[in-house]
């Protein structure tokens, strides 16, 4: 089972290490992790995508809460989930094909150089999976996923 936790932490030295060590030390999975400061505050938000059994999530949430600089652990079934992906294609592809495809996924072409086309999309993680499947025939050279960000509805 997959689950996303939104964790609000104090913006201080070593806090990322505490969270990551907790996952590593207790054998929990991290599928993706994003972190950035929350504007006009001393906090940062970490969004952690993880998987496991429900009782494991319960432990993870409690263990996170136990860390001193963790302010809040938000678990919700009502998140809006978004992720970004950037993909680099060989220049030989049809620019309009790629542009059309990217648009289907809230995206666009970000750059075209002598050798490459870079497209960026922003969508739900499951849709990003689909996109990545769909672009196989355009021989993507590099795919960068940002990890998921969420906000409660």
């Amino acid at each position: 089972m997959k689950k996303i936790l939104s964790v609000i932490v104090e913006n201080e030295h070593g806090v990322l290490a505490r969270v990551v060590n907790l996952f590593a030390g207790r054998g929990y999975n991290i599928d993706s992790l994003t972190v950035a400061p929350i504007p006009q505050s001393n906090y940062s938000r970490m969004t952690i995508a993880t998987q496991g059994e429900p009782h494991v999530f319960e432990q993870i949430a409690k263990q996170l809460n136990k860390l001193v600089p963790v302010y809040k652990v938000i678990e919700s079934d009502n998140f809006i989930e978004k992720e970004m992906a950037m993909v680099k294609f060989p220049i030989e592809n049809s620019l309009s094909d790629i542009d059309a495809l990217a648009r289907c996924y809230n995206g666009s072409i970000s750059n075209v150089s002598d050798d490459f086309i870079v497209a960026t999309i922003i969508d739900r993680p499951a849709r990003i999976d689909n996109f990545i499947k769909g672009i196989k025939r355009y021989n993507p050279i590099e795919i960068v996923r940002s990890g998921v960000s969420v906000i409660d509805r």
Partner: protein
Amino acid sequence: MKMSGAKIVIESMIQEGVEVVFGYPGGAIMNVYDEIYKQDSFEHILTRHEQAAVHAADGYARATGKVGVAFLTSGPGFTNGVTGLATAYTDSIPLVVISGQVPTGLIGTDAFQEIDAVGISRPCTKHNFLVKDVKDLAYIIKEAFYLAKSGRPGPVHIDIPKDVTAAKTEFVYPKEVDLKTYKPNTKGNKRQLKKAVEAIKQAKKPLVYIGGGAILSNSATLVREFVHTTQIPAVETLMAKGVLRYDDPLNLGMVGMHGTYAANMAMAEADLIISLGARFDDRVTGRLDEFAKDAKIIHIDIDPTSISKIVHADYPIVGDLKNVLEDMMPLIKSQIDPEQYAYFRNIVERYNQLHPLSFHDSDKVLKPQWVIQKTGEILADKAIVVTDVGQHQMWAAQYYPFTYPREFITSGGLGTMGFGFPAAIGAKRAKKDKIVVNFSGDGSILMNIQELVTAYEYKLPVINIILNNNYLGMVRQWQTMFYDDRLAETDLSIQPDFVQLAQACGGKGYRVKTKEEFIQALNDAIKQPVPVMIDVIIDRREIVLPMVPAGESLSNTIVEYHDPKAIENKG
């Protein structure tokens, strides 16, 4: 007035009411030691190894309930102390450990005696700090003491670079700490509490399961009241010794791997387990899928992560055990009729009669259990009993007549050999009017033997009773029982002369082989102003029983074992 960081450390200790610091100096922490030299508000005890400094602070904390303090230098000084941190962490002991660090500008350059100390201590402390600015120092120290002793207690580590102890700032010691991100829930939820009482009312075979939390939260009196009011039988973990008196008729004794038959059977058969500050450790539960199959579980604990971690709790109550029991007692008194559990009391009493805790005494060779019982007869509640780790530890837990909390000090969670002697030194420093005995093994005692010198120098006359079986006995026991007696690297036939060793360090030594010799030695040892070693030659093939083999269920408690190589015939 501006003060150096080093002086701030000292002044903060004074503000916290610290009376003794255990430690060991070195380059990175010299500024602090220079200030120790200039003051006489607290004592500094120079152990002969940093591990011992942290264990001594730990023993002090366990004996008093106060925060223990240790100072270490950077690099190897700090790493030597890590076992002490880990030991305190697993048993939730409040410590503040301060280490020196290389100057801020050198951090990350692989400087001399630089190690990522906060990186190492992170998983074995409740929290840790690297102080980057002297302006933060006083607040961090205040916070460290607060974190160490509040909520679920634990060790807190502060790493201070040398330039920070040199830099100056205005010293203001904060009166309060307010942490937005840390608010331990100390009051149990009232609704949950009522439900729990209702479950107790419905139960036919309830069992109280007492853990170390009962000692840490100073709730022994309340736990006794709970047990006596309800007349529900109780089992105790290694860490809960002394919460109930050893001779309390409702105390079935220790539960788990080396628990009593009655305690283990009661656990297996109960229909309701009332866990008071215990954490369902694997040494307690045995095989999990067989554990308390028919029981509902009330779990009271200050740490939410302990609840439903191992065993699902039907009635979770997060709170300080003391507060929760205080709130619960009026309900218990008005609603619970102790008569309703007479049937279960009768059953467990029969288990107890069937296989009481027992050993086969001998006139030819000293039995460790006899030595412990005898020590208990002679010292009774005049002593604090500390142990190392191994068979002797289990025998001490089983056979010493404990009557009050904090009487027994042992490394339960981590099982750290070498803990006993330095912890005993810390306990003696805390309770000078008590006799402090360390039951140790011929293996364990050597792991911090250098502390003889410390105990001698600071006139802390700890009595080490070495139950000498010429073996790493506990490992040997497993080899005998589960590895066909292939004794890989557990024979300690070659060992020092403990009597001479004690003498060489200013202490007093005895070697005893008979009951008379032991009684005489112990009575003489009590009068000594110097550290003592009593080298007690015991039956080397003795094993700890009862035993639940690792991974088996509590109902498979072995109470008799025939050792083909036993020195002495049974009986």
